[in-house]
């Protein structure tokens, strides 16, 4: 137990270090935590009060806490499933930890618990607005805090377990494949699709159930029985709470123990590589410096599953949704008529900008150079070309997503040509901004000594800044349109927004070539 405590402490410190910004270590993780807290509180607040209002009107407020707990679990799994593969099975410190007189179970558990800690913090923050909404709408007395705290502590074990199983599957199948990166990408893609389809189904179930209280009670006591126990616990049934605790805790422990039995073997397999000794020199092709660097960036991007999925997930969803919109056709048009055709283009613009701002590869691409950074710095290549190659990859990913999706959405929703062009333009302009802004964020908050790629891609300060900076700008643009909507048509606004994004990108580009290049020299 003491050894587990020591390892946990190290993992926890590594997690905090991953947010560090130069010497201002505490500022980094406090900032990251504040951002995470704001997002969790904001999203949960919107959902909680919306659901509470709806549920109380049909006399089913007791469903609020279980439903918000289900949502917290889904969001946690989506956020940590790829991190599990990197943090638990892809960490570089296994050569250091496994020779220590500590069992493989302890080593693995310490890493899984670090993952759990992340889910615990998120879950705790997520449930605060839900509890407030529950109390506000007269759901019960302060006594219910106890069952909610129990659920906050134990239910994240469940999401950590799902993430662990997903991470194990990715690691296991990749380790047993000759084309490791390709297999990792394939399995991650399938898992992502399963989680997204699953969460859409849950969403459908929840929407349908809202209209039928008896059906809700039944489902929470059958398919989603765990959350049914939570609901019973809120009504004072301590035995149900005990069942909830046991059903979260025991499978977590048992499956972690079972997976740890071949943890060492799996890590060894992952570290071993196929080395062929039959290569014969062939004719080589020369490229320009830019082309060589761009190809290298592509190799890094498509060869690193966590990098590919963490930054490419938005574009994949956007393309997936636009194809779905084209296929779903009439049913979506009916939905659009319900919500009002006037807000369709603003909603699509918001969605496109939000997704493109999430697609930020440049905010970690310098950090990912890590120990190999000397190759770039020692090469006779102007910094401008290095930046251009990094930005070009980001730009192409964003642009491909926009160019494929927007025309499909235009056809699916029968949008006027001008609306489609304005959406296309704002997507392309957002792509230019994101690529430049990401580089700036990475230069400002570099992390050249990340323990592994997962920490750099998911937890570094530049990743937070790059992605949420873009989202903040999207929110500001949405606010600007809200204020100007009585004076401007959405298409006019989108043309102006595109010009603004382009000018902003240009200003950042100039900064990159001057101050940015100076910072690059000092890294």
């Amino acid at each position: 137990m003491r050894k587990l405590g020591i390892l946990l402490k190290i993992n926890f410190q590594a997690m905090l270090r991953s947010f560090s910004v130069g010497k201002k270590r505490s500022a980094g993780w406090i900032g990251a935590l504040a951002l995470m807290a704001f997002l969790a509180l904001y999203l949960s607040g919107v959902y909680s009060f919306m659901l509470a209002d709806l549920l109380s009107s049909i006399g089913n407020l007791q469903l609020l806490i279980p439903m918000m707990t289900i949502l917290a679990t889904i969001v946690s799994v989506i956020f940590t499933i790829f991190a599990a593969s990197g943090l638990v099975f892809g960490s570089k410190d296994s050569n250091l930890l496994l020779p220590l007189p500590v069992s493989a179970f302890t080593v693995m558990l310490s890493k899984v618990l670090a993952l759990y800690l992340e889910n615990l913090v998120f879950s705790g923050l997520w449930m605060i607005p839900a509890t407030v909404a529950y109390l506000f709408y007269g759901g019960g007395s302060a006594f219910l805090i106890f069952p909610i705290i129990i659920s906050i502590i134990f239910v994240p074990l469940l999401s950590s377990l799902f993430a662990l199983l997903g991470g194990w599957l990715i690691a296991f199948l990749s380790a047993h494949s000759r084309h490791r990166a390709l297999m990792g990408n394939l399995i991650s893609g399938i898992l992502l699709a399963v989680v997204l389809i699953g969460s859409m189904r849950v969403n459908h179930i929840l929407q349908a159930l809202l209209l039928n209280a008896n059906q809700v009670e039944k489902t929470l006591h059958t398919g989603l029985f765990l959350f049914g126990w939570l609901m019973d616990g809120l009504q004072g049934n301590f035995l149900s709470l005990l069942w909830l605790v046991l059903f979260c805790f025991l499978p977590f422990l048992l499956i972690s123990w079972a997976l740890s039995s071949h943890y060492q073997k799996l890590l060894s397999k992952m570290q071993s590589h196929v080395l062929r000794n039959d290569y014969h020199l062939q004719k080589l092709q020369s490229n320009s410096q830019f082309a060589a660097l761009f190809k290298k960036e592509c190799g890094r991007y498509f060869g690193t599953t966590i990098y590919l999925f963490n930054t490419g997930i938005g574009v994949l969803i956007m393309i997936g949704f636009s194809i779905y919109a084209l296929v779903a056709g009439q049913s979506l048009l009916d939905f659009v008529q319900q919500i009002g055709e006037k807000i369709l283009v603003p909603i699509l613009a918001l969605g496109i900008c939000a997704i493109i701002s999430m697609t930020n590869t440049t905010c970690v691409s310098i950090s990912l150079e890590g120990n190999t950074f000397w190759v770039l710095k020692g090469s006779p290549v102007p910094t401008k070309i290095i930046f251009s190659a990094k930005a070009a990859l980001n730009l192409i990913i964003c642009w491909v997503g926009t160019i494929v999706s927007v025309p499909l959405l235009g056809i699916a929703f029968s949008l006027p040509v001008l609306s489609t062009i304005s959406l296309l333009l704002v997507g392309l302009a957002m792509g230019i901004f994101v690529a430049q802004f990401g580089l700036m964020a990475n230069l400002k908050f570099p992390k050249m000594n990340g323990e592994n790629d997962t920490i750099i891609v998911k937890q570094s300060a530049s990743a937070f800044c790059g992605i949420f900076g873009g989202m903040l700008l999207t929110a500001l643009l949405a606010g600007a349109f809200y204020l100007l909507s009585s004076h401007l048509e959405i298409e006019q606004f989108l043309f102006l927004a595109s010009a603004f994004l382009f000018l902003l990108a240009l200003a950042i580009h100039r900064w990159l070539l001057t101050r940015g290049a100076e910072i690059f020299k000092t890294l």
Partner: protein
Amino acid sequence: MLKISEFSKTYAGGKKAVDHLNLEVHSGEILGFIGHNGAGKTTTLRAVAGILDFTEGEITIDGHSIQKEPVEAKREMAFLPDNPDIYEFLTGIKYLNFLGDLYEIPAKVREERIKTYADAFEITGVLGSAIGGYSHGMKQKLSLVSAFMRKPKLLILDEPFVGLDPQASFLLKGFLREMCETGGAVFFSTHVLEVAEKLCDRVAIIKQGKLIKVDTTASIVGDESLEQVFLELEKEDVPHA
């Protein structure tokens, strides 16, 4: 070929790693850079290679300032760090071709050079495999092939003999000598004093960031071994600037 003038480097936190260093490496010579751990060898080599930024002093390679004309200066040299950390997701041949592109070496020329050096270091067969599967020694050999492929005027090596098998070490010494005979220059750090004694035309000894001795190997060694001289110098106090 290489001129270091009044070079100093102070790290964040106030530690002065190198203090007013003056050193020259001439065409056709091999200069060994020795000193104990933390003496400032790697800091100097990395600054010369343009990897480490500095504010005091001047470093020129073949007349090009590494700070004012970094691209021109880097084109004339090749640097290999003590740990061969290279892109593990690339295959050996893709890595060599990548560097060939960055250094703008014509395809035909790089093919010939890769063949010469990869065959010599016996790594041609594995060039089609991902570098992630290479051993430490193989990565080092690949890095050496990449350096010689560039035919640099100045070769900067940080501990090049650590991790190499005896045959590869022997080959490397031969290639270094050959390079100098054709007008190139080599500046390398090492802890293997026997190698420095036998291979270097001149030796520079650094202690606590200050250059305490630089001369021809024969003059420094005299009737003793380089090891004895080095240990004696290590006992002496560092002269203040």
